[in-house]
């Protein structure tokens, strides 16, 4: 079923919001009142509800089925957390109303901070970054600030393994670092020897994802950290995969100096089709002083929200966003943490890892895993060598999965293996759900090997759309609706 665009069904004279006639006043707008029409269409409420309900039905979501996007961690989103975030005391408070009127909000941030610090074994946490990539920026700024404080601005190089998320090099480059790659071993992990070879007086930091994007724990992480620290550099950890090791290892013990935490990945704040996220950054003792403002600090029973770098806190790197960060996400994350508790959080990590290994064990005879039959962490990486000679690609497998009723896994990432397929089931899937998924994946692999090419090349056939022409979209970008010519003419009249 097709759904027209808002602009094709709405009309500027229709509104779905009733307000009384505004009070009559002498306007105080100066010369600034808008004269030209905006041409914004309106919908009556029944039209709007139907339009967006119908649109929603063109989406796949966790609540429809397994969503095994590797590295994206699409786990169950408890509705309790939505309810909590909407309590008037959280959802309906202003960031700049007097602090004396929001002690509970500050308490919540403080409590969430306590959980994050305890789970990571770090010294402090900067809560305000708005998403993971923003957290990376925060962490790398803290490192830069620390280097400056040491008078070592000349350290410009940041080591980034090829398997890293694109945000890592992008972040480093954004604030003037020079990105240098670190090659991976055959299984995708980093060899401390390679790190040692590259560290030197020009190196500011390494950015390392652990567990890495191949789904493996960097078993030499302590050595790598030592190599980095010995060279006077810092260890930034990309916390995208923290969900695999909560309760199993504290990143502080691994030698990490800064790590962002994607609350939506590890602590299940809903991803909402692209955000909002939240990216608190935990900091080691060496970096804690550089935390941005605002900052919630707790001293025994006293909790304070510091909005400026008052007093002796001149090291603070400054402000990264207006207000105090993603409160709505904090409430959801804390609700998730309280619900799980220390025991449930560890169990969730264990189940996530078990589920991934179960998929690995059940698929490895048909799919090709670069790491062989080595256990994985929370996600399992395959490459496309099992497709050799079939003419079928990783993308074809992904699109054929859609026809089987699944969301595809992450494809072509990480870049370090050919035709990557990265599958992350998360702890939210039942065994029955995994078995159903595995059966379909086995069937696809066998069909591919049997040469049933049409099933793949023509996929998806049972989705709201067949394959979309992405090249055309990029070559002739059409980024907004435009009134068709006659209508435009009419509007101009």
């Amino acid at each position, binding site marked *: 079923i097709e759904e027209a665009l*808002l602009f094709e069904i709405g009309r500027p004279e229709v*509104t*779905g*919001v009733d307000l009384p006639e*505004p009070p009559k006043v002498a306007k*105080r*707008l100066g010369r600034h009142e808008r004269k*030209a029409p905006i041409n914004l*269409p309106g919908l009556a*409420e029944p039209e709007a509800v139907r339009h967006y309900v119908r649109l*929603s039905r*063109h989406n*796949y979501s966790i609540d429809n089925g397994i969503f095994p996007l590797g590295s994206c961690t699409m786990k*169950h*989103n408890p509705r309790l957390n939505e309810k*909590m975030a*909407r309590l008037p*005391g*959280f959802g*309906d408070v202003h*960031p*700049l109303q007097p602090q004396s009127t929001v002690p509970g909000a500050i308490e919540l941030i403080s409590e969430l901070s306590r959980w994050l610090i*305890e789970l990571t074994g770090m010294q402090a946490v900067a809560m305000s970054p*708005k*998403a993971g*990539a923003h957290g990376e920026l925060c962490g790398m*700024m803290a490192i830069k600030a620390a280097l400056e404080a040491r008078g070592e601005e000349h350290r410009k190089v940041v080591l980034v393994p090829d398997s890293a998320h694109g945000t890592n090099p992008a972040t480093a480059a954004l604030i003037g670092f020079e990105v240098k790659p670190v090659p991976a071993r055959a299984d995708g992990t980093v060899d401390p020897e390679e790190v040692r070879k590259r560290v030197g007086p020009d190196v500011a930091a390494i950015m390392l994802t652990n567990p890495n994007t191949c789904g493996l724990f960097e078993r030499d*992480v302590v050595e790598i950290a030592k190599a980095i620290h010995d060279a006077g550099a810092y260890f930034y950890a990309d916390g995208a995969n923290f969900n695999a090791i909560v*309760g199993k*290892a504290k990143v502080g*013990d691994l030698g990490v100096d800064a790590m962002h935490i*994607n609350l939506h990945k590890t602590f299940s704040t*809903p*991803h909402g089709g*692209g955000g909002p996220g939240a990216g608190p950054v935990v900091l080691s003792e060496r970096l804690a002083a550089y935390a941005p403002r605002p900052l919630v600090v707790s001293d025994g029973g006293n909790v304070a929200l510091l909005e400026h770098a008052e007093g002796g806190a001149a090291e603070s790197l*400054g*402000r990264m966003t*207006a207000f*105090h960060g*993603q409160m709505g996400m904090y409430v959801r994350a804390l*609700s998730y943490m309280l619900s*799980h*508790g*220390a*025991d449930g959080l560890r169990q969730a990590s*264990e*189940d996530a*890892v078990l589920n991934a290994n*179960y998929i690995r064990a059940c698929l490895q005879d048909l799919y090709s895993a670069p790491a062989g039959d080595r*256990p994985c962490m929370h996600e399992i990486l395959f490459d496309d060598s099992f497709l050799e000679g079939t003419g079928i690609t990783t993308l074809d497998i992904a699109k054929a999965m*859609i026809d089987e009723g699944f969301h595809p896994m992450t494809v072509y990432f990480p870049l370090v293996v050919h035709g990557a397929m990265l599958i992350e089931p998360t702890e*939210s899937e*039942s065994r029955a759900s995994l078995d159903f998924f595995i059966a379909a994946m086995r069937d696809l692999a066998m069909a591919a090997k049997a040469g049933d090419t049409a099933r793949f090349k023509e996929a998806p056939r049972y*989705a709201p*759309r*067949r394959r979309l022409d992405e090249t055309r*979209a*990029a070559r002739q*970008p059409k980024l*907004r609706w435009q009134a068709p010519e006659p209508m435009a003419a009419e509007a101009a009249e």
Partner: protein
Amino acid sequence: MRYLPLTPDDRTDMLRRVGASSIDALFADIPAKVRQTELPDLPRAKGEMEVERILGRMAGRNVSASSVPFFVGAGAYKHHVPASVDHLIQRSEFLTSYTPYQPEIAQGTLQYLYEFQTQVALLTGMEVANASMYDGSTGTGEAVLMAHRVTKRRKAVLSGGLHPHYRDVVETLGRFAGDSIKAMPADVRGEEDILGQIDDETSCVVVQSPDVYGNLRDLRPIAEKAHAHGALLVTVFTEAMSLGLVESPGAQGADIVVGEGQSIGNPLTFGGPYVGLFATREKFIRQMPGRLCGETVDAEGKRGYVLTLSTREQHIRRDKATSNICTNSGLCCLAFTIHLSLLGEKGLRRTAETCHANAVLLADALEQVPGVEVLTEAFFNEFTLKVPGNAAEVIEKLAEKGVLGGVPVSRLEPGRPELENLILVASTEINTDDDRAAYAAALKEVLA
């Protein structure tokens, strides 16, 4: 644990299938000396009822905006959002989906992003808009970086009417990126000589209107001067509702328009998550930060939507990307789009008119209080109030009387004695005659 479907039996069976002797065998890559054996020193799992009690108690300690006469703004505004908006954004298919990497099964998200981009372009009077930034402040930072890319210059001028938080964000970013940021001093009455700051090194001028003190600014002369020097005009707004009543920045010559979209569709939530609006001219699209959704066709020729121009983005371009942004404000965009589609031009205009009228009535009422002065001449729904006394203390005393009367400027600009008796006061369609009377009466008492 209610969120974990595996039973102990499942775990045993699955470990057997995996060929692992125990769950810890799967974590063997974690070096033994750093492997955690004790549970974290945190409470154990709790039922829903218990979690509701704990969080309910915390929430109960806060004074919610709806429970009192409420006039706090300064970058975040309390508007009435129709119940259908919050209902719709909670649809599973919206709430629990991911960034639309597989467009064939994400047309719902992609189409609303396309609608969002179009609405933002119309509202700002610009040619194109992206699929959102985190919020207005970080969007402003991205706008300055983009202006640097476009002009290949690295010197930005910030108006003294720019929200101090936004200024701080741009300054922080500029400092670490090695750019030059010239921030003008606080400009309460909108009288600064910003034209005088523009030269041939200037990448962009960043001007907010309505500015943080409430002043509506004339952007045309700034655009002209900037363009004459090869610089861009970046305009900022923090109150999206103003665009329903005030001339669009696009019509005044802005090159990049960035703003906070919270006012439309999104609750206050103590400051976040919000949604940054970002619009510009078509010729700059390859320099834009953030996600873009574009129209295309599928294999059968049917219209459809995809994320596009991703060669600008970090996941393709890595260290050459236009921004490091990844996750943005998807669901907040949806709330914005639904609310704005309900408002339509007619509803937006009426709401904006009500906000303005209520602010005018409020200014009239407060000006009656002895010793109080409204400093802002032309404003939309927020103005600067000068009180005889320390503004922060006045606001605190008003709060004790159950009135949330605005933001003392000193909270945004601490340590500036000349600003210590100023309050930013905002009004929206939610305020009633009773609210205004309560404010005026309480203020009179506090100042007495």
